[in-house]
Structures are given as C-alpha cells and as structure tokens.
C-alpha cells in the first residue's frame, strides 16, 4: 500500500504526467476541476513560445552556422519546416496519440483526435487550460524532430526528410511521450523525466546516430574537412537555445511557482558548469578554448539538467553540469571518431550521450526533500529509482534506434534518402531549394527570365541581355 501510494506520487507528478488521468473519469468521480490560475496560464503560454524560439531561430541557427555555406538554407529549412509540419500533425493526431487516454500503457487513445475536446477548461490537476498544455507539449514534439536533422544534415533529400519527420514524430515521439508523460508504462514504473531527457534528448540523439549510419557519410568525410561556415550563427543559436530552455524546463512545472523557480535556477547553474567544464577540458587537451566548444558545452549542460530540473537541488545541478561537459566532450571528440558514423552536427554526443547521463544523474541526485512529488535517488538511499532510470534509458534507446531504422528503410523504398554526389557537391541550397544563402556582391550577375510572369514586350524591349529567343 505504501509502495503504491509512493508510486502514485512519483508518477502522478512527473511534470507533464499531471495530465495522465483523462478528464472524464476525474470529473465523473465528482472532483471539481481546478480553477484556471492566470499566472500559471501566462507562464505556460510564454514557455510554449520560448520553446518555439528554441526550434526557430535557436536550433536552426545553431545548426545553420555549423554547416558549409552551400547548405546553410537547407539546414535552416529543416527546423523551420518541422515547426510547421509538427504544428499540423500535433493538432490532427500527435497530441491524442501522446496524451489521449492510455491504451495498455503503450499509446494514447483517439479521444483528442483533431484537438476534439481540447478546450479552454483545465484537464487533469494543473491549473491551466487544456489548450495551453497541449500547445506547450506540441512545441516539445517539434524540437525533438528538429534535433535529429543535425545527424543527416548536408545530404538528405527533401522529400525523404519530410516523410521521415512525419513518420518519426508519429511513430516514435508520440508513443515515447505517452510512455513517460501520458500515463504509459514508463510513467507507471516511476521513471523520472522532468522536461524530456529521455523523450526529447535520448530519442533524438540516438535517432540521429542511426540516421547517420543508414544514410551514410557526407562525401569527403572525414578527410576533407568542411569547417562551420558561420560560427557566430552557431553562438547566436546556442544563446537562444539557452534562453528558450528556461521555458522548456521551468515551464514543465506547468505553474508559475517554486518548482518552476527551482527548474529555472538549476538549468542556469548546470549550463554554466557544463560550459566551464567543456572549455577547461578542451583548453587543457587541445591548447585553445574554442568558441564552438563553449557553445556546445552549454547545450550539453542544458540537455543533462532537463530530466532532473524539477527533482534536484542547486548544488547537485552543478555536478550534473560538470558531468555533462565531460561526457559531451568525450562523446564528440573521442567516441565519435571511433563510431565511424558521420553524425554531422554531433546530435548523438550532445543529446544522446549527455541525455543518458542526465537521465541516470536524475536517478542519483533526485531528492524528495527538494520535490516531495518526485522521488529519492540513489544518493538519497533509493537504488530502485536508479534502476527505474536505467529502464527508461534503455527503453528510449531501443525505441529510437529501432523506430528510426525501420522508418528510414521504409522511406528509402518510397523515395531515395540522399542526394546524388553531384548535388551534394554543388550544395543542397542550390539543388534542393533553388536558392543561395549569400549574395554579397553588389554586382548583378543575372537577370530575371520573366519578371512577375510578364516576360513580355517590356522585358524584351528594355533589357538587351534578354535577347535570347523566348518560347
């Protein structure tokens, strides 16, 4: 009985899983729905917008700066397009698959298909409108898919990218979000994931690695280096990610309260610690403190603290941040060279490995003294919680790896996954999108073959360069 109660507390308040119980039974039992709190609602809506800003421009510019100049636009397009794609998918079916009434611990039911029944009243125990919760969660779905794109950047065909993204968010993200936050089997087990260490970061990081393996290396990798074309973009993106992450983590409290404040502070502290660690390690081993190292270290810290943000005290967050810097640096600089995969923008190292560290660290440092609705971790004398975290990690790894592999194999049958060698060398901006990122010369080197559809008398008469025969 005691165990059962404890499990309920653990499960019921795993951040988003406040919503695991469908509205109807709650109301049917005569419990009055909670009143909407305007402060909580304002914070969650703002947090939703902050998480959106993580996708675009945050992640888009973080990734966009890291690629070669000829792929700058195609990389920005990945994040931008996914934001739109998942906005529609989430409303139509993503939300209900993730947060609809539980079916066997595996998937959400279709009660909320097309946002049916997702209204202005609260649903569950949080004091915000159901719509606000659904909007917040929709942004998480978007950034998770967008993160994966760093694994296959600079070589994936656009149609294959669209199909993969749609299938992945539906068949991998939505079930996984349900398992952990929607009342699925991992929630029932008591695995803690405050803001998405397993659901968002392990899943995207592992998927990026598998995608990189299936799609293959970029031509010339790793012998011919193509260094980042615009590191200031990358720093700008990292800073926006850090900023938006306050919505991601502190917003996951689903209220403007003390828990949100804790999540805010530990997020900032861990990120600082991870950045300092990465810079120190790189400076020591390589002789120079690179700016890209600082930016990457910050992302590692943000990733690691994500699952722990509502469960650990501030000093523990510093340890988690230091661990993030070490694990991330090792993954990106040592392990990557030995994996043989061209995970182009290091999604696996920074999100997969560091996400795994964060999930495990949550099982070490979690404390009911910090959050009574959480659980005690190993260091508070509860090894069982650590085991739960391990199970959560293994489940996320397996789901992401198998799901991504199968989806890519299926997509590959429908349409080729990668561009031709020729297209890759010319660049995806030109070959996939018909654009170039930079036209910096004031000289006009071209002319419109048809201005606004009027390739007419005026154009022919006025422009001697247009003397070629027109059809």
């Amino acid at each position, binding site marked *: 009985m005691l165990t059962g109660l404890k499990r309920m507390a653990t499960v019921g308040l795993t951040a988003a899983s406040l919503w695991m119980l469908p509205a109807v039974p709650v109301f049917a039992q005569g419990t009055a729905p909670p009143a909407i709190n305007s402060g909580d609602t304002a914070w969650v809506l703002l947090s939703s917008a902050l998480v959106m800003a993580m996708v675009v421009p945050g992640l888009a510019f973080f990734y966009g700066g890291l690629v070669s100049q000829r792929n700058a636009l195609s990389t920005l397009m990945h994040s931008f397009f996914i934001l739109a794609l998942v906005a529609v998918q989430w409303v139509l079916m993503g939300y209900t698959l993730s947060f609809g009434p539980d079916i066997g611990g595996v998937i959400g039911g279709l009660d909320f298909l097309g946002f049916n029944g997702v209204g202005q009243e609260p649903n569950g125990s949080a004091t915000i409108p159901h719509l606000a919760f659904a909007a917040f969660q929709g942004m998480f779905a978007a950034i998770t898919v967008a993160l994966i794109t760093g694994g296959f950047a600079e070589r994936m065909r656009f149609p294959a990218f669209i199909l993969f993204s749609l299938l992945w968010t539906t068949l991998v993200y939505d079930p996984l979000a349900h398992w952990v936050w929607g009342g699925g089997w991992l929630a029932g087990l008591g695995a803690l994931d405050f803001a998405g260490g397993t659901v968002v970061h392990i899943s995207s990081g592992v998927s990026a690695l598998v995608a990189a393996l299936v799609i293959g290396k970029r031509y010339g990798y790793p012998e011919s280096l193509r260094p980042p074309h615009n590191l200031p973009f990358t720093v700008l993106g990292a800073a926006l990610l850090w900023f938006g992450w306050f919505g991601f983590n502190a917003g996951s409290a689903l209220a403007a309260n003390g828990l949100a404040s804790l999540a805010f502070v530990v997020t900032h502290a861990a990120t600082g610690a991870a950045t300092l660690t990465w810079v120190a390690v790189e400076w020591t081993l390589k002789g120079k403190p690179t700016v890209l190292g600082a930016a990457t270290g910050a992302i590692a810290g943000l990733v690691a603290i994500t699952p722990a943000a509502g469960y650990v005290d501030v000093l523990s967050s510093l340890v988690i941040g230091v661990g993030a810097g070490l694990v991330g640096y090792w993954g990106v600089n040592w392990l*990557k060279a030995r994996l043989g995969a061209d995970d182009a923008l290091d999604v696996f190292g920074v999100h997969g490995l560091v996400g795994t560290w964060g999930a495990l660290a949550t099982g070490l440092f979690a404390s009911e003294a910090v959050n009574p609705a959480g659980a005690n971790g190993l260091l508070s004398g509860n090894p069982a919680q650590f085991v739960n975290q391990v199970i959560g990690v293994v489940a996320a790894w397996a789901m992401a790896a198998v799901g991504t592999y199968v989806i890519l194999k299926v997509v590959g049958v429908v349409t080729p996954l990668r561009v031709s060698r020729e297209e890759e060398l010319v660049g995806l901006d030109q070959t996939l999108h018909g654009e170039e990122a930079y036209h910096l010369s004031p000289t006009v080197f071209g002319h419109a073959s048809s201005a606004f559809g009027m390739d007419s008398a005026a154009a022919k008469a006025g422009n001697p360069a247009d003397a070629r025969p027109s059809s």
Partner: protein
Amino acid sequence: MKMLTVIVRPEKFGDIVAALRRAGVTGMTVTEVRGQGYQKELPQIYRSLSYQADFVQKVKIETVVPDDRVEEVLQAAVAAARTGRVGDGKVFITEVIDAVRVRTGERGDAAVLGPGADM
C-alpha cells in the same frame, strides 16, 4: 609600362598601400586571394580536429607604372611587405602593351599617371 602584381600577407596590406602611395602610385586594384607556397597557415580547430588550409589567405595588389618608375615602386612594395618569415609573398612584373583612361581616352603612361602626378 609595366604591371606589378604584388601578392602579400593580408596583415601587411595597409603598410604596403601607404608605401606605394608615398612612391607616387595613384591607382591600384586589390583582390583577396588564396595561394600556395611554402607557408603553412596557422592551424584552426574544429571539434577535436586541427586543420590547416592548403591555400593561405593573401591579398593581391595590381598596379601599372611607367617603366622608369618600376624599380622605385617595386622596392617600396617589397620593403613594406617583408617580415623575413616564410610567406611574405611574391611580386611579378609583366609588360603592359597599352592603357586607356576611360573618362578621357588618354593612352599609355598618361592613362595610368594620376592628375598632377610627378612621375
């Protein structure tokens, strides 16, 4: 008339332009270029990898001067460009058949001398 093609370190560009002006040069064309010689560029770091560009950043200054001024201008450019280390660059001197100042139609030396120039 000869063309001096001066390919030098970008960080010496300002000094060289000043020296050329002191030597009476009034017109020049400048291009940012990359080239390969004996010099190795400073290594850059991307993740764990240090890499060196095979082609090193240089700046190319082209100027056309009357035959009797070539040596003075050449010496000014070389003196300003020299650091004594590998990678200081090259100067190539080529014969120029003719020149035209577009605005006035002047030809030859008159086309490359500045207004009121004493060279």
